[in-house]
């Protein structure tokens, strides 16, 4: 298999830039746009995805030879839904304030295409170690992107990052940045920048 040839390091880092789920593959945009009104929300959403993706990839890749092709998608969904519910219940019990801020988006990780996508494209075809590395890289790439997006929106929309005042008091917050249009604008600019950087790198190489 082609994947077996790449080094574990490449497998891990591809999620950060080359195959970044949000910026390069444009997957999981619904939670990306919806929860990033503050950096902390982006970070906690990302960490919930790290938890779900790593455990789902581990389990799926462990049982990849037991699951018949015909029922692989329902099986993946059950495994993912189980971990998401575990994450949701644990957050509601141990970090209730964050759980409240994320609202319905944690249960919606079930239908986040990054997770199902990684099971179908990677975990169901690769060894456990590789699948976990891939899942870690992908979900951390997702987390960093969401935190960054949340930080930009929070900085311009509320003048703070992680609730710490950054902007001077005279700064008038741009309300639009914490509203849905701000999410689209910021994400669009981030994807544009990512494409521009990649194109420039391609030219100089």
């Amino acid at each position: 298999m082609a994947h077996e040839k790449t080094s574990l390091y490449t497998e891990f880092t591809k999620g950060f830039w080359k195959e970044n789920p949000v910026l390069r593959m444009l997957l999981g945009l619904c939670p990306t746009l919806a929860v990033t009104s503050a950096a902390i929300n982006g970070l906690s959403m990302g960490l919930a995805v790290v938890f779900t993706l790593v455990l789902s990839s581990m389990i799926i890749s462990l049982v990849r030879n037991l699951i018949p092709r015909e029922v692989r998608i329902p099986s993946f969904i059950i495994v993912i839904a189980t971990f998401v519910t575990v994450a949701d219940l644990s957050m509601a019990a141990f970090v209730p304030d964050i759980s409240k801020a994320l609202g319905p988006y944690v249960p919606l990780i079930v239908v986040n295409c990054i997770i199902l996508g990684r099971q179908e494209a990677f975990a169901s075809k690769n060894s456990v170690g590789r699948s976990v590395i891939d899942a870690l890289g992908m979900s951390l790439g997702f987390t960093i992107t969401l935190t960054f997006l949340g930080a930009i929106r929070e900085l311009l929309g509320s003048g703070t990052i992680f609730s710490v005042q950054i902007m001077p008091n005279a700064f008038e917050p741009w309300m639009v940045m914490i509203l849905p249009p701000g999410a689209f604008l910021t994400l669009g600019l981030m994807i544009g920048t990512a494409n521009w950087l990649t194109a420039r790198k391609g030219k100089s190489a």
Partner: protein
Amino acid sequence: MNTSTRLIVVLTGIAVISGAILSFFNILTAERIENYKLEQLRQSVAMVMPGTQDYETLTLSGKVFYLGKDAQGSPTGVAFKAVGNGFQSKLEILVGMDLEMKKILALKVLSQMETPGLGTKIETDPTNKEHPGWFMAQFENLNTLNGIRYVKNEVPDQEGEIQAITGATISSKSVVEILNAAISGYREVFLKREVQ
């Protein structure tokens, strides 16, 4: 094993294991989640009826009342949940009132998902740094016998009037309408009980 049996066995197996894991986590977290909700409610109830140390729950004609008590056990007021539609979300407000249900003691927004930066000002207004909760505070000690009304862009000078939030008139109006409907509905039930 033929293919279709295998499919059924595998899917059933996965579902059973998943069910077992979920019930385990449900048992593990249910108590904490329930306690958190009760604690939240207790704090909110104490907040809308100043001086409250403890409360009793009373259900009359399907309406739930929280009767507040201070440290000596004397009543501090009565609280209930007012629920209705805001601009884009369901608003849930805890209302604390005196025992005649004439005057509002204080309000607390329990849940709202209004437009960030506009409708959310009903709960906290970040542009008003000294007093972010000014909108809800307006209702404190408000006489509700003739209903609550809102005014726009002027200082309220009549009894039962509050000022609407600029840019969030619909949210402000919804709060007033929800309160008016809930207060008269709950008052009717609650005062009848006093007569008995």
